[in-house]
């Protein structure tokens, strides 16, 4: 990355390719599979825009991981399942990556109340509509929205405080 900061295009392409591979693995465990590529694209652009903030005296991947987590919370906030996911590309429950994704996220979401966790998992990870989530959980639609909002806020605070 030091060479990339100095303007070496070949070194930059190489580190971005490694970064892409690392991000694919990182997000595969943290967000619905259908959203991984878009998120990787967003983070690559952030890395480019903010590459001056990387300190060459320090390891690269902790810096990248911090950006990736920051953008991950952003992506969860922005994700609108009704618009972005159709039935054809919803995550499949038996898919190994989806299971890993759920497990990892469940670990992080363990810090939230159950109602908020359920709302986030159903709406933001599984891509269900608020109507479906309300039916499954027995919460009202407005409560689902409130729980998603509050849960993401707590999640962001949790990530910020780590």
């Amino acid at each position, binding site marked *: 990355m030091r060479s990339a900061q100095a303007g070496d295009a070949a070194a930059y*392409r190489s580190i971005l390719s490694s970064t892409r591979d690392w991000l694919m693995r990182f997000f595969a465990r943290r967000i619905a599979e259908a959203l991984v590529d878009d998120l990787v694209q967003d983070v*690559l652009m*952030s890395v480019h825009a903010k590459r*001056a*903030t*990387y*300190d060459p005296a320090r390891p690269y991947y902790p810096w990248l991981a911090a950006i990736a987590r920051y953008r991950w919370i952003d992506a969860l906030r922005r994700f609108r399942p009704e618009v972005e996911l159709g039935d054809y590309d919803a995550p499949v429950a038996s898919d190994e990556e989806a299971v890993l994704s759920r497990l990892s996220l469940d670990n992080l979401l363990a810090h939230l109340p159950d109602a908020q966790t359920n709302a986030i998992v159903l709406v933001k990870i599984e891509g269900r509509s608020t109507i479906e989530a309300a039916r499954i959980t027995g919460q009202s639609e407005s409560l689902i929205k409130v729980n998603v909002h509050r849960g993401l806020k707590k999640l962001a605070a949790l990530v910020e405080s780590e």
Partner: protein
Amino acid sequence: MNMTNDLDHLIDRLAADATPVRVQRDSRGRLMLALIAGAIFAFVATTLGVRPDLLNQSAENERYLALGLLSILALASGYHAIRVARPQVGAPAPGLGWLVAALAILPILALATILAEPRRIGEMAVAPGLRCLEFGLICGTATLAYLAFWLRRGATVRPHQAAWLAGLCGGAVGAIGVTLECGEPSLLHLDIWHVAVVPAMAIFARFVLPPLLRWR
């Protein structure tokens, strides 16, 4: 497959735009911060003058203690505020909460004194107190503004904590500035009104800065 190609194209495009960048080094930020704080203190000293008892070392010990606590808080919060502009994992400012708690001893002592000696409440008069609070906030503004600029140029992943840190630093610098020049003899005045600059600026920063520090 298409998305893989999209990512490859994106990488090619970004690599083609690999212009040299100037690394945002913490040392440069800290140097600038020190220069700004120094300029504020120099401005206060040359235009309004420093309390004579501070200069000839005849002031009360508590006054030096307050200046010491404020200086350490300014150094620690400024150090971490500069650092937190870089994306990183791990606690951003370990121990800073204890430092703030140590500073809080001053107003707690003042309130305890008032409870024990209610006749001294006049020493915390509002009019001169507000004047010092206002002057302290003005003194701290340049520091806060610089930190906001630094953080915006950077890529903080903790906008709320960065805002707190910047506010604490600006407030501590402002409180030092006003403590250097304020001629009020009462330590109760210092403990309440000068120290109040710190939480006032920190709370202001906490609510104003985070939206400015978010980036994509």
